[in-house]
């Protein structure tokens, strides 16, 4: 793979592009030990997946997905009129799914390596 370097930061990576056309950069270097999949985009630079910077970025992204699921699946059901129209079973499901999402970042050591389940996926597992 190839890495474009600017100000000592990895600003672009590619398995095939060794030129990084038109990108403002200091140099392009080849990395024979890794592939693109081993790197994570951390805002303004790339870092190896095991780097603290990359781990924090992954946590941030998974939390964002978690938050979007709360907004998409749970929050609309909490409106009083909607909530009252649900069966007791569904009320219990949404309550439990909400707790599952809230607890997700503490659910395991590697929680940030995959997104939480959607509501439908979670229901299937129950």
């Amino acid at each position, binding site marked *: 793979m190839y890495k474009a370097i600017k100000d000592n930061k990895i600003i672009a990576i590619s398995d095939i592009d060794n030129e990084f056309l*038109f990108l403002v950069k200091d140099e392009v270097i080849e990395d024979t030990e890794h592939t693109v999949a081993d790197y994570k985009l951390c805002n303004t630079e790339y870092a190896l997946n095991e780097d603290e910077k990359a781990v924090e970025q992954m946590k941030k*992204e998974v939390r964002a997905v978690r938050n979007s699921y709360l907004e998409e699946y749970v929050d609309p059901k909490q409106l009083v009129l909607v909530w009252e129209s649900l069966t007791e079973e569904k009320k219990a499901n949404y309550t439990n799914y909400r707790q599952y999402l809230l607890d997700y970042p503490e659910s395991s050591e590697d929680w940030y390596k995959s997104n939480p389940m959607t509501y439908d996926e979670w229901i299937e597992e129950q």
Partner: protein
Amino acid sequence: MSTTTNVEQLKLNVMTKQQYDIATKSPTELYMVTDATMTAAEVGAIPQVSSLPAATSALAGCIYQYVGTTTATYINGYFYKCVNNSGTYSWIRINVQPDHSNVSNCIIDIPQDIALELSSGTLTLRAGSKVYVPNGSGVFDEVVIASDLSVTPTWLNNKLGVVYYRRANNNITVTSIDYCFSGSTAPTYADGGCWYDTTNNKIKRGISGSWVDTDESSLPIAIVKDSSNVVTSIDQVFNGFGYIGSVIFALPGVRGLIPDGINPDGTLNSQIITVPDVWVSSNTGASCDGMWLSTTDFNRVAISTYRYIEEKNYWISIADGNIRPIIYIGHTTGDISTFSPRYIFQAVDYSDTAFIAHQAMPSSRYNTLTLGASGSNYTAPADGWFVLLKGAGTSGAYCNLVNTTAHIGVTSDGMATGAKYIYIPASRGDVIQIAYSFSGTTESFIFVYANGAV
């Protein structure tokens, strides 16, 4: 001019031009030359002829434009002057059209020697096309194709293809541009590949595990585009200029006007340059982004090396301020992926607004780019647009494209699903910054050239 009045007797001398040339003339007598032929300047236009008359003393100095069929001696469209060479008269081709005083710093002629056509995936090089086979140090054999040659490539696998002629087989073939190289040392072997060995001036092909020159391949003649193993378009025909790997070349007959100052009457002065042989430049490196034609060579040098002084009509070297007899031919890059030689000079009709407006619109030509991390900068290689199609990943994510040179920008807010097209215009040399929190898939990131920049 002098005027004499009150002449008592007016003497009129009637004679042939030959007699006139050797006669002792009197300023007070008139002369009538019975067999004089007007020069082009005298009649105000260059006569066109489909066959040149025998060169004689009577035609000395006359200029004709030859409009007959190109022969081994005369080329259609070129200008010929009758000259006296130690008492023997002959027609010589002149390298200048009658008046270039209002034009300079441009290409004025690119021979259209290659006639390549595409039909239903089949490429045909027409008979009469002219190609050049590198054949040892400094030698390029000119080959005129005797009969139509066709090939139907089914092996390019969505890659650009380089077309060239193989003299030993008398056919044409196409090799993926990824397997075309140049340089003084052999590249890693590529089966079916094509390497321009600059040390030995040979095009070598990868056959049975080694690089060999048995095919006697020509310099590339065109670049074609492939889609699912069918050639769909001819992107560029190498009439006049071409490239292979990181080597560029100019072909015989390319003519240009090298800026050479301003005449006392304010008109532009130029040196006419006609490329006499195949001129090759193997300069490489990221900084060699300009192509330059001089009186002695065709070379790759950084665009920033020279500056054109318009009010004085010449190029100078920025390093030492000295005048350089050169013409800027166009833009290129390290291992060439963009190659844009200028067209021959044509005046723009200001009333043709449709044509002018069309130049500022997007063309179908583009380069595929790699998107860098947020905040990375990109330099526009020409007038055009940076176009990004990327997924946001989450709602509320953003993507900003800012032209930091022109101080304009565009912002897109993302939706959780789907990708968004975002684009920003850029003039050549403008720096674009792309900052984003979009985390979805980058579907494509390209630079699209304006019609006028193709």
